[in-house]
C-alpha cells in the first residue's frame, strides 16, 4: 500500500501563500519550485496537420513553439520558465515523441548555458485507456492502451524530460455518467473510490520508472472528471450542470488527486487540477495552477482566486498561430509572465499575503466552485481528507460532504448567493452523501448493484477488484 497523508502539512490556512511550499523542489536547469518565487509554466498545442510526420511535429514543437517561447522570455526578461508539452495522441508512438523530448531538452540547455535563464520541460503523456477495453496491463487485448501508456512513460524518462505528468482517466466511465445525470454518488464511486485505486496502480509504476531515470514525477489532475463538470457548469449564463454539483465534485476529486503524492509524486502537480489547492494544503508540495491567464483555453469564474497559493502559474494550453504581437504562445507567455512578476514583486516587498487575499476575495463569492477553493475553505476540506486519510472511500465522501456543508453555511450566512436550482441540487447531494454506507465494502456492493446497467463499461478487473 502506498503511503497515506493523515496529517496536514500546513497547520493553518493562513500559512499558505503563493511561491512558497513546504517541500520546495529543484530540478532541470536552475529550476527551484515553491522556494520563494512563482514560476510561469507555458503550455501549447501544435497546429492541426503538423502531427502527420515525425519531422514536422518535432519542428513544430522544438523549432517553432519552444524557440518562440524562449526568445520571448528573454525579450521580456523573465527569470524562469517551465515548458509543458501535453502530448497529442500521435505522440504515443515513441518514434514520434522521442525526438521532441530530446529536442526540447537540448534547446533549453542551450538557452540556459547562453543566457542563464532558469528552464525545465514537463511532459504530460496522454492517457488513452478505455474502461470498456481494460485499464490495466494485459487487459486491453484490442488496443493495448495500458501497455502504450507505459511506453509513453518510458519515452519521457529515457529522453531527458525534467518532469513527468499525466491527466489520468481512471473512473471516467462513472464520471461521465455522474456529470450528465447529476449523480454525486456515481462521481464518488468512480472518481473518489475507483479513480484512487487506478491512480495508485499507474503512479506506483510511473514513480518507479521516473526514479530510475532521475526524472521528477510531478503529479496528476482530475481533468477528466471535475473539470468536465466545471466546464459543463460553465459561466453565469449556463445551466446544464449546477455549480453546486461541480463544486462538490471538485472536493471529491482532491481525495483522488492526492494519490499521486502518496505514491511518491513530488509536485509541481498538474496546472488544470483546481483541486491542487486542497492537495497543497495537505501535502505541502508545490502546486501548479491556472486561472485568469488561461483564457486561451477556457473561461471559469475563479480566474483570480486560483493564483492565491500557486507555485507555478500556467496558461493551460494555446494553439500555435500568429497574432499581432507575435505568435500566440509568445503573447500568452507575456500575460503569464507579467502576472507572475506581479506575484514575485509582492513577495519581494513583503506584500504576498495582501495580494493573495486580493486574488482570493475577488472571486470568493462569485460561485460555489470558487468558494470551496478559497484557501481557508480548501484547507478545511483538506483536513477531513487527512482525518480519514487511510480510507479512499471515506476520505472522498468526507471531502464531498464537507465541501457541500461549507457551501450551505456560506449560503446560510448570506456570504454566498445560490440560485434556487443550485440550492436544490446542493440539498439533494447532502442528503444523498449522508445516507451512504459507512464502510467501503457496503459502499462497493451498493454501487456495483446500482450502476450495473447504467454504466455498462464498468469492469472490476480494471481496478484490481
Amino acid at each position, binding site marked *: 500500500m502506498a503511503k497515506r497523508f493523515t496529517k496536514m502539512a500546513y497547520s493553518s490556512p493562513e500559512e499558505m501563500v503563493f511561491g512558497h511550499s513546504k517541500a520546495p523542489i529543484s530540478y532541470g536547469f536552475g529550476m527551484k519550485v515553491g522556494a*520563494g518565487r512563482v514560476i510561469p509554466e507555458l503550455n501549447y498545442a501544435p497546429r492541426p496537420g503538423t502531427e502527420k510526420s515525425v519531422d514536422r511535429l518535432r519542428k513544430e514543437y522544438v523549432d517553432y513553439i519552444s524557440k518562440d517561447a524562449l526568445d520571448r522570455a528573454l525579450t521580456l526578461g523573465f527569470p524562469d520558465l517551465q515548458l509543458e508539452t501535453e502530448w497529442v495522441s500521435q505522440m504515443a508512438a515513441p518514434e514520434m515523441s522521442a525526438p521532441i523530448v530530446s529536442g526540447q531538452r537540448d534547446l533549453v540547455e542551450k538557452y540556459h548555458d547562453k*543566457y542563464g535563464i532558469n528552464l525545465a520541460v514537463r511532459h504530460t503523456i496522454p492517457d488513452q485507456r478505455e474502461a470498456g477495453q481494460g485499464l490495466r496491463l494485459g487487459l486491453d487485448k484490442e488496443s493495448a492502451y495500458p501497455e502504450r501508456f507505459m511506453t509513453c512513460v518510458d519515452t519521457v524518462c529515457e529522453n531527458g524530460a525534467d518532469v513527468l505528468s499525466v491527466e489520468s482517466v481512471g473512473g471516467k466511465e462513472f464520471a461521465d455518467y455522474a456529470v450528465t445525470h447529476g449523480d454525486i454518488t456515481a462521481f464518488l464511486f468512480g472518481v473518489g473510490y475507483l479513480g484512487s485505486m487506478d491512480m495508485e496502480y499507474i503512479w506506483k509504476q510511473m514513480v518507479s520508472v521516473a526514479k530510475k531515470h532521475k526524472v521528477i514525477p510531478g503529479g496528476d489532475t482530475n481533468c477528466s472528471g471535475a473539470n468536465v463538470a466545471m466546464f459543463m457548469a460553465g459561466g453565469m449564463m449556463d445551466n446544464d450542470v449546477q455549480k453546486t454539483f461541480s463544486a462538490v465534485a471538485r472536493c471529491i476529486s482532491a481525495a483522488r488527486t492526492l494519490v499521486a503524492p502518496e505514491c511518491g509524486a513530488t509536485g509541481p502537480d498538474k496546472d488544470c487540477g483546481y483541486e491542487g489547492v486542497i492537495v497543497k494544503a495537505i501535502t505541502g508540495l508545490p502546486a501548479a495552477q491556472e486561472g485568469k491567464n488561461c483564457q486561451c483555453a477556457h473561461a471559469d469564474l475563479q480566474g483570480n482566486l486560483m493564483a492565491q497559493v500557486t507555485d507555478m502559474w500556467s496558461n493551460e494550453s494555446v494553439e500555435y498561430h500568429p497574432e499581432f504581437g507575435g505568435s500566440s504562445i509568445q503573447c500568452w507567455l507575456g500575460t503569464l509572465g507579467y502576472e507572475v512578476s506581479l506575484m514575485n*514583486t509582492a513577495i519581494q516587498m513583503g506584500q504576498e499575503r495582501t495580494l493573495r487575499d486580493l486574488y482570493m476575495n475577488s472571486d470568493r463569492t462569485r460561485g460555489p466552485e470558487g468558494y470551496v477553493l478559497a484557501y481557508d475553505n480548501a484547507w478545511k476540506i483538506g483536513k477531513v481528507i487527512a482525518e480519514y486519510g487511510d480510507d479512499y472511500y471515506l476520505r472522498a465522501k468526507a471531502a464531498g460532504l464537507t465541501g457541500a456543508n461549507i457551501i450551505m453555511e456560506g449560503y446560510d450566512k448570506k456570504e454566498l448567493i445560490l440560485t434556487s436550482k443550485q440550492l436544490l441540487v446542493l440539498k439533494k447531494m447532502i442528503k444523498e452523501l449522508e445516507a451512504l454506507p459507512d464502510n467501503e465494502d457496503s459502499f462497493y456492493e451498493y454501487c456495483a448493484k446500482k450502476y450495473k446497467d447504467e454504466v455498462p463499461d464498468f469492469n472490476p478487473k480494471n481496478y484490481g477488484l
Partner: protein
Amino acid sequence: MSKTKIDYGAILRRYDAELENVSTPEAIAAKMLPSDPHLKEVASTVLYMKIREVGPVVMKALKEGVEPLILINKGLVAGMEIVSNLYAQHVYYLPEIMMAAKTMEIGISIAEKQIPGGRTTKGKVIMHAVEGDPHDIGKNIAAVMMRSSGFTVLDLGKDVAVDTVIATVKEEKPFMVSGTALMTTTMTACAAIAEKLKAAGINIPVMAAGGAVHRDFAESFDLGIYSEKAPQTPPIADKILAGYDWKKIRENWDDIVEGI
C-alpha cells in the same frame, strides 16, 4: 512599502545589461581586428582557425606587398591576441586556442622566410618533457600559450636527456628553461638541470611544471620556479623579461598568477 530591500532580479531580469558583459567572437573581432583589409584577412584566419586557408592568404598578402614583419605582428599575432582574449572570457576553449595557435604558426613560418636575418620576438625559452617522461600534453599546451603570447619557443620534445638540455641552453641562450614531468620518478631531472646550469654559471630560472610537480619541489633547489598550469607560464615569463630573477619570481609568485 513594508520592505525596503527589493531583489529586482528575482522579479524580472535585465538580459540586455547581462549580455553586454558576454563576448562573442564576432563582437570582439569587430573591436580588435585590424582595419587594413590584408591584415584583417590574415588575422581572421587565425581567429576562426582556418588552418587550410592561412597559407594561401599569407602568400597572397606578401605578394601584394605587405611587409612580412608587419604581417606577422599586426596580422597573425593580432589574430592570436583576440583568441587569447576570447579564451580568457570563456568564449573559446583550450582546443580552439590550440588550433588557432597552429594556424598562426603556419602563417609565421611562411612569412618569416622573407625576413632577412629572421624575426625578433619578446624572447626565447626552451621547453621539454624531462628525461624518462613521455607525457608531453601539458608541455604542448604551455608551449602554445607561450607562442601565442609572443615568445619564441624551442620545443625539445619529450624524454629529453639532461645533457641535451644543458647543451642546447649553452648554444641558444634562452632566458628561461622549463621542464615538465608527469612521473614523480622523473621530476628530479629539473633539479639536475638547475644544478648543472648553476655550475656552468648560467643563472636563468628553471621552471618545473607538470602533474607530478608541486610548488614545494620546484622551489626546493636553486634557480627553480613553479608553474601550476599552462596559462600561468606566459605571465611568469613576462616578469623574468622585466628583470625578475628566480628569487624574486618565487617571492611574488602568488601575485603574478593570481586569478589564473
